[in-house]
C-alpha cells in the first residue's frame, strides 16, 4: 500500500498481559522502524529491520520486548508481561532505499497502548 498501516489503533491490556502490535510497511520499502512515544513528545527508537533481518536493536528492552518481520506478513512488536510504564503510542515507520539517509522515514498512525 501507499501508507504505513498500523493495527490496532488502540489496545488496552491489564498489567501482566501480553500485547501484540502490527505494522504493514509501504510496498517496496525495505526498512522498518519501531519507535515508542511516551509523554506526548519523547520518541525512543526500539528496533529496525532490513527486510526480515534485524538491522539495529539497540533500543529494545531485551527482557519483554520482541519483534519480527516475516516475509508476506505484517511486522509485529510483542510485549510480554506488560507493565504500566509500557503505556505509550508505538509508531512504525518505513523507508525505501538501502541508503536510507536520503529518504525520510514514513510513519504510520501509531498504536496507542494503555496498560491498566
Amino acid at each position, binding site marked *: 500500500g501507499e501508507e504505513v498501516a498500523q493495527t490496532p489503533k488502540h489496545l488496552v491490556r491489564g498489567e501482566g498481559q501480553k500485547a501484540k502490535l502490527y505494522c504493514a510497511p509501504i510496498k517496496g520499502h525495505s*526498512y522498518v*522502524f519501531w*519507535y515508542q512515544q511516551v509523554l506526548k*513528545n*519523547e*520518541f525512543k*527508537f526500539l528496533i*529496525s529491520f532490513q527486510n526480515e533481518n534485524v*538491522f*539495529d536493536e*539497540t*533500543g529494545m528492552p531485551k527482557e519483554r520486548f520482541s519483534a519480527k518481520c516475516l516475509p508476506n506478513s505484517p511486522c509485529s512488536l510483542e510485549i510480554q508481561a506488560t507493565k504500566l510504564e509500557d503505556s505509550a503510542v508505538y*509508531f512504525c*515507520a518505513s*523507508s525505501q532505499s538501502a541508503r*536510507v*539517509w*536520503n*529518504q*525520510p*522515514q*514514513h*510513519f*504510520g*498512525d*501509531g498504536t496507542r497502548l494503555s496498560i491498566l
Partner: protein
Amino acid sequence: ELKVEQNPLFLSMQEGKNYTIYCNYSTTSDRLYWYRQDPGKSLESLFVLLSNGAVKQEGRLMASLDTKARLSTLHITAAVHDLSATYFCAVDGSGNQFYFGTGTSLTVIP
C-alpha cells in the same frame, strides 16, 4: 549517544508574526529531518536536509542546516492558525535510527 535538543519547547505566537525554532545536536551528522505532528496524529515529513548549508522552503516554512555548528533552524513566516502543531527535528544516527528532538509545541493565536 546522540542528543538532540530543540528550543523553545512551547511557542505561542500571533498570526502574521515570524519566529524561528532551533534544533541542536551533539555529534557529527549531515542528515537532518523535520516533521510535523498534529494532536493524536502521525508524523508528517516536512523537510529532508542532507548537506551543510542546505535550505529548503515550503509555503511559510523554511528549514536550514549548518553541520559545522550542528544546528538546524525552522523559520516560520507570517504564521497562520493552520501551522499550530508540534514540530520535531530528527537526526540520523548510527544504524539509521532517528534521534528525535524534544519537540516544539506551536500555537498560533488569531
